[in-house]
């Protein structure tokens, strides 16, 4: 049975959305809400992450696996650079997803309510925002988007139980560098991460590409503590 990753996304996204919502209602909610302490939140999420990784190790074995789709082997020659079709599709999908998320957060009532919750939970609740609904939806969306990212990346990376740990620091750096809570920032941050990584790889040393990224990351935080597009004083 072979399902194209393009179709798989349509399955993966709703499934993970559901999974995220269940996770929130069953576990997160009991710990996160009403607690300003970070320790329990962190313990919980890290614990869940480890459990999932280990379980997937039992089921799928720790081996690397790769899929081959026609996209991976098709390359476009743009003079100075080669771009594989898979990467181009990944770019298109991430562009589309970011745009949708941005429109959702900025243009719909639900999205506005979500942002209001971030700014001031108490006031938002007083204005009639249902915090439980918002949080459940937010965790679900977050899981679904991560799933879409995974499905797309797997067309040109290998997949194994610990694979998430490779992308976790990169995505975190992208988000914080761009400015937390800002879709445009995350998008630009992601591009900066990629460019800095590749530039360090080409011009300094391939082995040092993540070290180069860390240097740029810390420099940006020193100059703009809340990220490139972040509002001062957020968080």
């Amino acid at each position, binding site marked *: 049975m072979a399902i194209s990753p393009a179709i798989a996304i349509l399955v993966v996204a709703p499934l993970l959305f559901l999974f995220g919502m269940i996770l929130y209602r069953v*576990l997160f909610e*009991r*710990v996160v809400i009403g*607690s300003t*302490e*970070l*320790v*329990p*939140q*962190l*313990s*919980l999420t*890290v*614990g*869940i992450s*480890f*459990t999932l*990784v*280990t*379980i997937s*190790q*039992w089921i799928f074995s720790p081996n690397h696996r790769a899929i081959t789709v026609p996209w991976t082997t098709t390359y476009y020659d743009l003079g100075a650079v080669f771009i594989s079709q898979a990467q181009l599709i990944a770019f298109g999908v991430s562009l589309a997803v970011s745009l949708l998320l941005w429109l959702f957060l900025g243009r719909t009532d639900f999205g506005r309510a979500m942002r209001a919750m971030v700014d001031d939970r108490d006031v938002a609740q007083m204005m009639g925002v249902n915090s439980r609904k918002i949080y459940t939806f937010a965790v679900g969306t977050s899981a679904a988007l991560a799933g879409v990212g995974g499905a797309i990346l797997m067309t040109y990376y290998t997949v194994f139980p610990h694979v998430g*740990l*490779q992308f*976790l*620091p990169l995505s*975190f*750096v992208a988000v*914080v560098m761009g400015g*937390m809570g800002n879709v445009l920032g995350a998008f630009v941050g992601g591009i900066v991460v990629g460019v800095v990584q590749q530039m360090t790889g080409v011009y300094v040393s*391939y*082995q*040092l*590409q*993540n*070290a180069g*990224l*860390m240097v740029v*990351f*810390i420099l940006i*935080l*020193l100059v703009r*503590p*809340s990220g490139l597009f972040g509002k001062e004083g957020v*968080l």
Partner: protein
Amino acid sequence: MSKDRDLLAAFLLLLVLASLPWWALKNSYTMGIVINALAFVSLGLAWNIISGFGGQLSMGHAAFYGLGGYTSALLLTRLGITPWVGMVPGMVMAVFAGLILGYPSFRLSGVYFKLVTFTFGLILEIVARSWINLTEGDPGVKIPLLGNAPAMYQFDSAWPYYYIILGLAALYFLISRWVLRSRFGFYLQALRDDQVAAETLGINSLRMKLTGFALSAAMAALVGTFVTQYLLFIDPASGFGMFTSVKIALVAIVGGTGALWGPVIGGLFLIPLAELANAQFSNITGVDVVLYSAVLILTAMFLPRGLVSIPDLLRVRRAPQVAPEEQPLPEQKSRLSGELGLTEANPKAE
């Protein structure tokens, strides 16, 4: 617990632990379990300084542990410098890294520090894997066997290692106790409890947190050198890996974050438990990981203040048995207002 009882209890525990190899730990396997537990007690105590007392959660403490281990190991294999000396540059590296990370992230509140330390550990792991010329990459650094060479931090039996790590854990306990009772420790805890109020009173929050973080990082680095010499080996995953970071934090969290005894109890409880589980289910890989995860999740949900809070919880359970009318009302009120940080605003109200 009063301060004298803390010391007395610690001394008794130290005596028991010091005597263990004479009657309980008959082979190097069981001794290894306690050595491992004591190493994590030490790491947990180090973590507790910045994350427990200071309230700044470091989720990448393995980074400092790994820096200590890698620095002394590489100095030994490349330049032949004894780890007794090499552990000092290791600590310096850790302090330096701590300052670089702390300076931008402490100026922002909350999540940033947690995330920056977390990322730092992961990035160091990737660097250690990929910068093969320096770190020898994935296979890790192996310490050459020298037999019994005390001058090179290498012994041919587990005994000396046992007493070194026991001494280190005892030292870290004393440091923690000193920090808790010092002006510096009060500042840290004040910043954790209410940063704005503490700053208003003139506490330099950035400086205090940086000091705490540097101390904590140096302490972790020293344990890194020890474990590397004990195992004669360090690799990217065990040195910088997320699992090591989480284990460090876990020991303190399960025991009780910010409590003097937290990491001690957490480490002595959790590590042997995980080892037992691993030995029991040796055919399934990752049993310890699942066990740690389960303990983490359960602690988060049911015991957010850790094992040390169990006596308090029992005391609270028992309290309602006192008939309500017998409860001395004024005392209760003053305790409550004390907790809220209020002075008697309306003494005539009752």
